[in-house]
């Protein structure tokens, strides 16, 4: 009698699979590490930062970097190192908040447009076209200029300009997946649309949505810092990277470069972290990019 030894199928837990794939993708890993470090520093800012975000020392203004003030101090005597760390809280909150809201609202619009089709699809997508006819930074600028500078308005404005991205993405996913066998089967079984969407369509659209979100989060930080820099958004003297650059603006001329240099580096590094995650994942997902 012939005996065939079947190869044992190793069962791996999803986390282990994820880790194995991640290891083969150093670009994403690097990005992930950067974003994680920045996030941890921001969350535990009170433990890491030697000074408070608004703890001015009138006796030590405009000091260049030293051991007592790693990144130097600004014109009020604020410690740049501490503020750069604290600022991560606001900037990450804006990025996650704006992208999260845009994702929820945009995906809802996209799903409705894709599922209902016809007039609804036409109306929703034309609305999205109108929004994306604007250069996104300029539309966000207009919204904050109208609503007035504040954290909430800044998040709302950046969320608004990101909505069309997600609406288009999910709509095209819905249109593709709608025709797939398993979705037609689910519909034929009489499952309500909401359930088909949540159970069958959304889980299958996760990957592109996630990749898009990392890239959008990076751009959201640039937009938030840019708007705060020109006085729309977070106001002086709160600890936010764009505000900090603005506060150092007039001192660059007289040689106090550190006031602007470090917060800018923080922006560049954080945004790069998000971009690396998205870029690396895109390579994995898109066979054309290998």
């Amino acid at each position, binding site marked *: 009698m012939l005996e065939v030894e079947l190869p044992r199928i190793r069962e791996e837990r999803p986390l282990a699979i994820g880790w194995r794939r991640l290891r083969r993708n150093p670009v994403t890993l690097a990005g992930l590490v950067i974003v994680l470090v920045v996030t941890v520093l921001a969350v535990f800012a009170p433990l890491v930062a030697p000074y408070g975000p608004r703890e001015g020392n009138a006796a030590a203004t405009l000091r260049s970097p030293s051991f007592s003030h790693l990144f130097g101090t600004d014109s009020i005597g604020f410690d740049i190192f501490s503020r750069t760390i604290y600022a991560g809280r606001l900037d990450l909150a804006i990025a996650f908040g704006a992208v999260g809201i845009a994702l929820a609202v945009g995906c809802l619009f996209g799903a409705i447009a894709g599922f209902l089709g016809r007039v609804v699809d036409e109306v929703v997508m*034309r609305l999205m076209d109108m929004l994306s*006819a604007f250069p*996104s930074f300029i539309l966000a*600028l*207009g919204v904050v200029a109208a609503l007035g500078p504040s954290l909430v308005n800044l998040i709302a404005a950046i969320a608004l300009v990101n909505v069309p991205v997600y609406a288009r993405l999910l709509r095209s996913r819905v249109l593709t997946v709608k025709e797939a066998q398993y979705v037609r089967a689910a519909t034929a079984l009489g499952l309500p649309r909401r359930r088909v969407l949540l159970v069958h369509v959304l889980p299958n659209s996760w990957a592109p949505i996630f990749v898009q979100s990392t890239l959008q989060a990076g751009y959201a930080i*640039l937009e938030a810092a840019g708007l705060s820099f*020109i006085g729309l958004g977070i106001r002086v003297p709160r600890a936010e990277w764009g505000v900090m650059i603005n506060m150092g603006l007039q001192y660059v001329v007289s040689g106090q470069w550190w006031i602007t240099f470090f917060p800018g580096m923080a*922006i560049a590094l954080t*945004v790069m972290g998000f971009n690396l995650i998205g870029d690396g994942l895109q390579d994995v997902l898109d066979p054309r990019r290998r």
Partner: protein
Amino acid sequence: MKLGFYAGRRILLLVPVLLGVTFITFALTRIIPGDPIALISGPYVSADRKAEIRHAYHLDRPFYVQYGHYVDDLVHGNLGTSIVSGQTVAGELSRRFTATFELTTVALLFSVLVAVPLGILAALKRNGWVDGVSRVVGVAGISVPVFWSGLMLSFLLFYKWKVASPPFGRIDPQVGAPRHLTGFYLVDSLLTGNWAAFRSAFAAIWLPAFVLGFSVMAPIMRIARQGMIEALESPPTTALRALGAKPASIVFRHSLKNAMLPVITMIAIVYGYLLGGSVLVETIFSWPGMGLYVYNSIASSDFPAVQGFILYATTMYVVVFLVLDLLYLALDPRVKY
């Protein structure tokens, strides 16, 4: 002929898009918190005068009537009046348009001239060192905030090493602007043979244009690389190779054109980013364009000016997009319309 017909249709299709855009810029005035009359008239005005203003601005009518008046004004080239200067916003913006257009165009040229060759080289030697370097440069470009890189570069190159012109404006005031022909200093100075002006204008523009152009290099590079890879792997190219065509001829004579078509579309997309970035870069370099104007208007709470700028810049973007789209159609023999 057929292209002309198609172009006409595309231009007509601009009307609903621009109407949508005006609806949103109109809606922006409605979300301003507080009484719009107080904003226009200031706090020390009698109730009668306020009612007059309310009537003059059609604020006593329903919103669709207000919107109608707004569009009617726009059609007649009226973008409103600046609260601060009392000048028409359309006039103020038109005067600054060429400065912004020149800056964004030079930035775009720089970006394309660097990114496209890099993308092509990266495609020819995939995963080689050029591919790696261009990728790093690209990620750096989209990650660095333009207002910061502009500041830091002018600190190093002007204040420290004295190799760049001062970051103040388009031209050395002692040289003076060239005679006005097109409004583009580089072009005007060349046409009039005014070398001193050309040198000064170039010295002023290269750094801000570099900063702005650097921020959009990554997408152009990526699309050039991908386009070239696809062109090189297409069946016609395989056939050419089988027929013994030289590699250089394959790349330059046959693949380049196909690879460049998607680059045109990408340029249209990144132009919006350039316009947005120009607000920040113009602020840093005191560049007397629309971006610096809107920065100053924000500082003085001049909302009609901000609103006018948004509409003006968006229209500019939509038009550039259309022109590039038509260029694409004219160049691509595959598209049937």
